[in-house]
């Protein structure tokens, strides 16, 4: 049975259901219960955004508040995964990856390969990404391209509550390390989400809208803006196919390329900085493999190549807008 819940609740429910189903699943992170060692509420925070609220009461001993030691606890999650557990470690803001990146890209991502296929590392590292929260340069980045660059990591970025639950359950059941990127500005947005557990397979993009004139590819927060642009353009007779990538590694190249074969035009929308981004990656591959199908120049709509600014005025200009996306479609259509 489905009912409307927020992406925050959907993630909480995915964690709860998987912890119920599988005793090897546990969660850890700074303040994910909150109140550890104090005399007050032991579930004081449930994570800085309340995503894990209520879980410690249901799973005492399996919701671990960690010290402020990302290297140690992310590494411990990786180590526990290599020893048969299924840890879900919250890195709070994925910007903090800097201090523990080694444990992720040199350890977790490489065990299976370095060890000749004999290791599996079912760890999920989840945390917040994205701008729009007035959290400035070190708490707002969309670092997805950094993760997709690393073979061995699976990289997920849901755009809505339904996908978030199914993809997180899939992430926990998956035997490889997964970086699960949660856009902080989507936490409060509701969608129809089944009460039951379900999974969404990795490497399956979601085509949200059919269209014959132009393909718009996006993920995360900018999926909504891409849809908004497509609806506006539809009123002028321009029909866009909107693709939500959902999983960035693996990436559903077939769906992207089939669509471009049909439309002949491509706009890549990416909240990351433009250099070596998801947008540039897709543009390059499509230019290489679908060159003959292209009727106009590929357009990229990304954040500017700057850190995320603090000033609300500037930050609002930072994330790709529906207007920018529509303008990019018009630009490629003009050719």
């Amino acid at each position: 049975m489905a009912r409307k819940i927020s992406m925050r609740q959907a993630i909480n429910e995915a964690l709860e259901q998987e912890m119920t189903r599988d005793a090897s699943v546990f969660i850890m992170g700074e303040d994910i219960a909150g109140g550890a060692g104090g005399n007050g509420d032991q579930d004081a925070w449930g994570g800085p955004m309340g995503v894990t609220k209520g879980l410690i009461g249901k799973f005492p001993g399996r919701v671990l508040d960690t010290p402020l030691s990302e290297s140690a606890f992310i590494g411990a999650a990786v180590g526990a995964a290599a020893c048969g557990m299924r840890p879900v470690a919250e890195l709070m803001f994925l910007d903090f990856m800097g201090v523990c990146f080694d444990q992720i890209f040199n350890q977790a991502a490489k065990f299976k390969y370095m060890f000749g296929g004999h290791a599996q590392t079912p760890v999920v590292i989840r945390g917040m990404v994205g701008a729009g929260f007035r959290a400035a340069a070190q708490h707002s980045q969309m670092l997805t391209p950094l993760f997709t660059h690393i073979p061995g990591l699976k990289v997920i970025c849901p755009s809505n509550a339904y996908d978030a639950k199914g993809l997180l359950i899939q992430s926990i059941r998956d035997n490889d390390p997964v970086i699960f990127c949660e856009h902080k500005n989507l936490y409060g947005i509701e969608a129809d989400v089944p009460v039951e557990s379900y999974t969404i397979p990795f490497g399956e993009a979601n085509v949200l809208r059919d269209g014959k004139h132009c393909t718009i590819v996006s993920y995360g927060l900018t999926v909504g803006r891409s849809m908004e642009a497509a609806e506006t353009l539809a009123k002028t007779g321009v029909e866009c196919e909107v693709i939500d990538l959902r999983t960035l590694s693996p990436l559903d190249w077939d769906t992207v390329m089939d669509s471009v074969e049909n439309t002949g035009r491509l706009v890549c929308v990416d909240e990351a900085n433009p250099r070596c981004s998801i947008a540039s990656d897709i543009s390059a591959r499509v230019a290489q493999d679908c060159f003959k199908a292209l009727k106009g120049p590929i357009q990229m709509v990304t954040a500017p190549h700057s850190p995320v600014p603090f000033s609300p005025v500037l930050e609002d200009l930072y994330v790709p807008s529906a207007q920018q996306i529509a303008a990019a479609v018009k630009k490629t259509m003009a050719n």
Partner: protein
Amino acid sequence: MNAAKKSTPGGGIFPLDKPDLLVAYRTMRRIREFEERLHGEFAKGDIPGFVHLYAGEEAAGTGIMMHLKDNDRIASTHRGHGHCIAKGVDTKGMMAEIYGKATGLCKGKGGSMHIADLSKGMMGANGILGAGAPLACGAALAAKFRGDGGVAISFVGDGASNQGTFLESLNLAAIWNLPAIFVVENNGYAESTSRDYAVAVDSYVDRAAGFGLPGVTVDGLDFFAVYEAAGEIIKRAREGGGPALLECKMVRMYGHFEGDQQTYRAPGELDDIRDNKDCIKMFSERVIEAGVVSRAELEAIDREMTAEIDAALAFAKSSPSPTLADLSTDVYVAY
């Protein structure tokens, strides 16, 4: 085998009875033979990459590992051959791995710095200094969740003991009371830089105290000292007594890696090591002098080990190399 077993035919001189003394000797000889043959072969130019030899340090790895079972985990270092062998990993598979052959433990994809055998609880040598400590915390956490009495041991050199990951792990293990043991293998140098220059405290016991952990320093050249100290610490951890730090003061007999001219050493330093600080020689003399084991018995083991490593080398040299088809297997995401 455990430290409590002290009924010995040697009149209570040794903490192990004769069969176990022979096991210890065999393990140390196996390591030494393996490393010395590598030293010779490396000079011929047939072995690719970095090779860091454990020769001279055998007493430490062996004295500790004799307390472990397959479900106890170790996180090793770049100088990992000795840890592997002492943990029971097969020398043929190791040798083939070091030669980069398809028959290697990791199918030739890991090499000397990444040899792993998870079935033996060996979670991998590690090319990143200090990276093993968080992983060991994770392994210890997994053992604690399972309640199987398992322990995890993190090996770290004196140089790597300055890494944040290591220090964070001491704290994490302490606050979670993990069955984790941090072994500092202090061979006096990090590459060419001396421990006395790079480590601010004189004693690792003090460093452990700073994190609320018990610390013990032993003469790492003395197999029996290591064996007894490790036995107590491991037993305590198994019984829920929590983590500890064990410093083994030791020497390395060869360069940091093969090809190192070692000009940073004082004149005569290496001769002194060979003549007076060879841990295997020291062990042999003691057991022979005590009349527990005869020289002939040890020489028989020496011959056995030479034959074993001969066979390992022949296996490695005659094994096929991996092919292009292996290049992108065993990785979670195919581009």
